[in-house]
């Protein structure tokens, strides 16, 4: 999974075709994160648009030496969404709190259910990654949410990532075997 540096350079030179390509590559992954954080489709759509506008406007500040392009984009999406939720929370606190609480019905959970190798992890590992990555909680908020000490929570994340890595390796191996067999 190497970044296409040529594509990113074009984006930094304000090539709208490059933006379109970047959108095709990452909009689904980013929308998955945003929608899981705010659990509100119409808001998530606005935030996704805002995210890509920011990616477009700030692309010159991205430095490939510091990390992958997706990590950088993910942080933008997460910050925009957290800010929007904070604003919304202030508004909602003046109205009816239950509106916000009722949002995560079981039906929505099914639609927003997690997929891929993440699903194969043990529930507490899965939950830990979900909280920090897809729900945008900080480690501090998340360990309280899960009701475990911060140190334990951090080790959850670490173990979860390790397991994830192993399962990706396994998948790669299987793909490699299939490719070898097809030759």
């Amino acid at each position, binding site marked *: 999974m190497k970044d296409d540096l040529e594509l990113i350079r074009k984006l930094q030179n304000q090539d709208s075709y490059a933006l379109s390509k970047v959108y095709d590559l990452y909009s689904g992954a980013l*929308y998955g994160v945003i929608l899981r954080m705010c659990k509100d489709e119409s808001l998530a759509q606005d935030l996704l648009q805002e995210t890509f506008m920011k990616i477009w406007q700030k692309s010159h500040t991205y430095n490939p030496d510091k990390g992958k392009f*997706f990590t950088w984009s993910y942080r933008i999406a997460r910050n925009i969404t957290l800010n929007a939720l904070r604003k919304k929370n202030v508004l909602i606190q003046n109205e009816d709190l239950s509106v916000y609480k009722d949002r995560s019905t079981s039906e929505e959970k099914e639609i927003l259910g997690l997929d891929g190798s*993440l699903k194969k992890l043990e529930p507490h590992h899965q939950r830990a990654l979900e909280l920090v990555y897809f729900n945008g909680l900080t480690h501090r908020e998340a360990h309280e949410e899960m009701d475990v000490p911060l140190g334990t929570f951090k080790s959850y994340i670490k173990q979860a990532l390790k397991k994830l890595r192993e399962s990706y390796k396994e998948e790669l191996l299987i793909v490699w075997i299939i490719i070898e067999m097809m030759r």
Partner: protein
Amino acid sequence: MMDRNTIKDTGILEQYLLGELSEEQSIEIENILKEDKELREYFSKMEDDMEQMALENAITPPVHIKTAILNEVENPSLIGKEKVIISQARKKVSYNFAIAASLATLFLLSSGWLYNQWKNTERTMITLQQETNDLRNRLVNLEDNYKETDKWYQAINQPEVVQLILKGNEKSPNSAAIAYVNHQNKEVILNPKGLSKLKNDKTYQMWADVDGEMINMGVISANQEMITMKYIENAASLNITIEPVGGNDHPTVEQLISNVYL
């Protein structure tokens, strides 16, 4: 400054990746990463995993978002009025989308209908083809039959052909065969249909009597309408005997069932 293992253990890299850290902390981590190649690789793998996880959990956003973003990027002067324009664009987009969707539905339905029609036609074609083959086969059979019949008919329906009835004697009273003898073409054709059925190990055989000697004219195979027998010169009479299957060299005279003089 923290050492490599402490950094790995504290989970601060994860927090850095997620964007949880303050700007100061982030810069500190970035500086550490810049110095430490191994740690940078460790972080890069973590990034890969997180990206993979996000891609696996991707949700496709509605199409109009992309259109709106590209519109906005290509007409930056409109940014000031973005809210109004976006909502209008969205309406327009959803209107266009509705048209496209209904066209697509129409197309889908008509393709379905055409597909059905095509399948029906295909079925009819196959049936027709089978019928044609069937008819062709029947025609070939009929033609063969006709040719066969015509051959026999031509052979026996001639003025020089003598027709002889071989009636069964007391040994086989219900038997009768018809022999057609053509002395000019030296041909003998026999219609054995009237001969009584024999056991499986027996057969009828035909003989010509020449100067008191019986000469083989051939075995009369069962279930045939017309058989060509050997023509024997100067035969005085035609005789039919019952012989073991495969025929005999000499006639079993006791088993003579019919004879006729020429």
